[in-house]
């Protein structure tokens, strides 16, 4: 005997605007436009205004810049993992390479900060791509582990051969002229990266990336060279990381082997998981949550990391799909009970 509630089920319906905007239908009214653009504008405006709001608490402005750096890594990771199918645990490699290139260009060759950052982004992306090239045929965990090894190796090499300042690192980089430039460079880069990637994955090229992730054999059968696409993906992700690394180096006016540290690999992934993989914006939200939590917990002293880990776990367990996926669904869909 079916129980009373058994004759009902929860129905989920896309909101009208959503359906119309997914098709080619015109979206007319302001309300509908606002519905579609609202979240995006909120994110953009929020990030742009945030530094001003945080003016009374300069330390939190600093935290914001760090958030941006982690976000950069995180969207790179998300893109690579969920659109290209390469799970890279080597975020630290990108940060380190970016930081060192910026540091060398700045201290040895005397290039100004405005030149070193873009150069480090592009060159760094290139260097990382070349390094990872032989590993591109690897799949799944195998790629993940090899990419995890690279930053460890880089740090050890610098240490063993005592190059690039050895364990002391490179000191005496130019700092940003002021904290505003520091913050806005990062925020604007982050927003640009975010929306450019969004656009990319929705284009036809983006579909090829997703095809590579889903089923590379079929992509081959369609006459497309998967290695090139994988390399391109790695280049994009690592450039983002290198950009972050270069900025980090200039913010602290120093580059050193600890920029290859494991944290740079793990935290962006955690942020992606918390925020929701495959959404690109999710990782940013994840960083916006995780990094401040970690800062707030500083007062716990040694216990901090343990508490942090517990909070992280709670997020993963209770919203396993990720906040962004959950939020987007709630935003775009109605749910209600219907009789069967």
């Amino acid at each position, binding site marked *: 005997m079916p129980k009373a509630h058994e004759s009902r089920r929860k129905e989920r319906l896309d909101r009208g605007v959503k359906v119309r905007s997914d098709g080619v239908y015109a979206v007319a009214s302001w309300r509908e436009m606002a519905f579609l653009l609202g979240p995006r504008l909120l994110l953009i405006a929020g990030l742009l205004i945030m530094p001003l709001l945080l003016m009374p608490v300069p330390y939190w402005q600093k935290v914001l810049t760090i958030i941006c750096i982690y976000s950069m890594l995180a969207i790179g990771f998300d893109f690579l*993992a969920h659109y290209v199918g390469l*799970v890279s645990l080597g975020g630290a490699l990108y940060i380190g390479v970016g930081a060192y290139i910026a540091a060398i260009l700045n201290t040895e060759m005397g290039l100004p900060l405005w030149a070193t950052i873009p150069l480090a982004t592009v060159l760094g992306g290139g260097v990382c791509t070349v390094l990872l090239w*032989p*590993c591109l*045929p*690897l*799949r*799944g*965990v*195998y790629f993940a*582990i*090899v990419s*995890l*090894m*690279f930053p*460890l*190796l880089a740090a*050890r*090499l610098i*240490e*063993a051969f005592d190059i690039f300042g050895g364990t002391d690192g490179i000191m005496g980089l130019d700092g940003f002229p002021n904290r505003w430039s520091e913050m806005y460079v990062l925020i604007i880069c982050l927003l640009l990266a975010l929306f450019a990637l969004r656009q990319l994955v929705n284009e036809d090229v983006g579909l090829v990336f997703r095809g590579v992730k889903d089923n590379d*054999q079929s992509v081959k059968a369609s006459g497309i060279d998967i290695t090139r696409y994988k390399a391109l993906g790695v280049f994009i992700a690592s450039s983002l990381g290198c950009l972050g690394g270069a900025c980090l180096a200039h913010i602290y006016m120093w580059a050193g082997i600890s920029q290859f540290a*494991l944290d740079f690999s*793990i935290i962006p*992934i*955690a942020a*992606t*998981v918390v925020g929701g*993989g495959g959404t690109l914006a999710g990782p940013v939200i994840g960083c916006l949550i995780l990094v401040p939590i970690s800062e707030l917990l500083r007062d716990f002293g*040694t*216990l*901090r*990391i*343990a508490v*942090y*880990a*517990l909070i*992280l*776990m709670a997020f*993963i*367990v209770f919203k*396993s799909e990720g906040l962004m996926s959950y939020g987007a669904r709630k935003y775009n869909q109605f749910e209600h009970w219907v009789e069967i």
Partner: protein
Amino acid sequence: MDILIYGVINSATLALMALGFTLVYGVSRLPNFAHGALYVLAGYICWLLLNRLGLPYILAIALALGLVAVVGGAMYQLILVRIRGMSISEIIASYAIGLAILEGLRWGGLKGGTFTLPAFLEGSVDIAGVSVDFQRILVVVLGALLVGLLYFFVNHTRLGLALKGMAQDERAALTLGIDSDRMAVASMALGSLSAAIAALILLPLGSIVVEAGYHVLIMAVAVCIVGGLGSWTGAILASFVIGFAQILTTAYLGAHFQVVVAILAIILTLILRPSGLFGKQKELEERV
């Protein structure tokens, strides 16, 4: 000669460290990044039982093993079960658990290098002119024994086979009456048990420090992957590759290249054999 002997010992050590991780991953595709934490936890529990409660060593060992197995099982039952199959979330969640355990221990007082366990056997012998202490010989012997046991378990027992099935295709396993959740709990408990066994054999040689957790994790992951997922022969061979790579560099290149060479060995092996020494995953995935 000493290179040979200490190479073998080093390799056995690595194999022991990796065993639990390999078991869990090979058998239920669950990357247990809390492996290192469980290792340290086992040592610490044993130390507490021994020094705070004053239990006899054997009893302390038995209790510690049991407790850690329970912790491992509970970890799956309470947390990981909710994200089963989402591998990135699994990595992060288990890493977070490990972090919570390790940093919790650190906060709880596990700091500095004063926590040690007594060796099972004191003294040493000379083998071909090289003196080796009994505990290290024990590492090799117990390591071999444990590997043998686990190999038998995985390949020739009903439970082991069921675990293997579940790892490869959970839905297919379900249709055959294999209860995947229960199996995963079992494999986590077993994996934690082997982590604990490894800890209790190896820790008398060192001291119980939080950092060992991270070290053991990295080594375990490396051995497991280089060997090829789920392959026991591969894991053993990989321990030897990495173990000897380390000892040989120490002997001929200088020890500060040890880690460099080990990592290079890992990367190179994988570039040459993309699914590890004995893995077939790549070929299988690319079979059309």
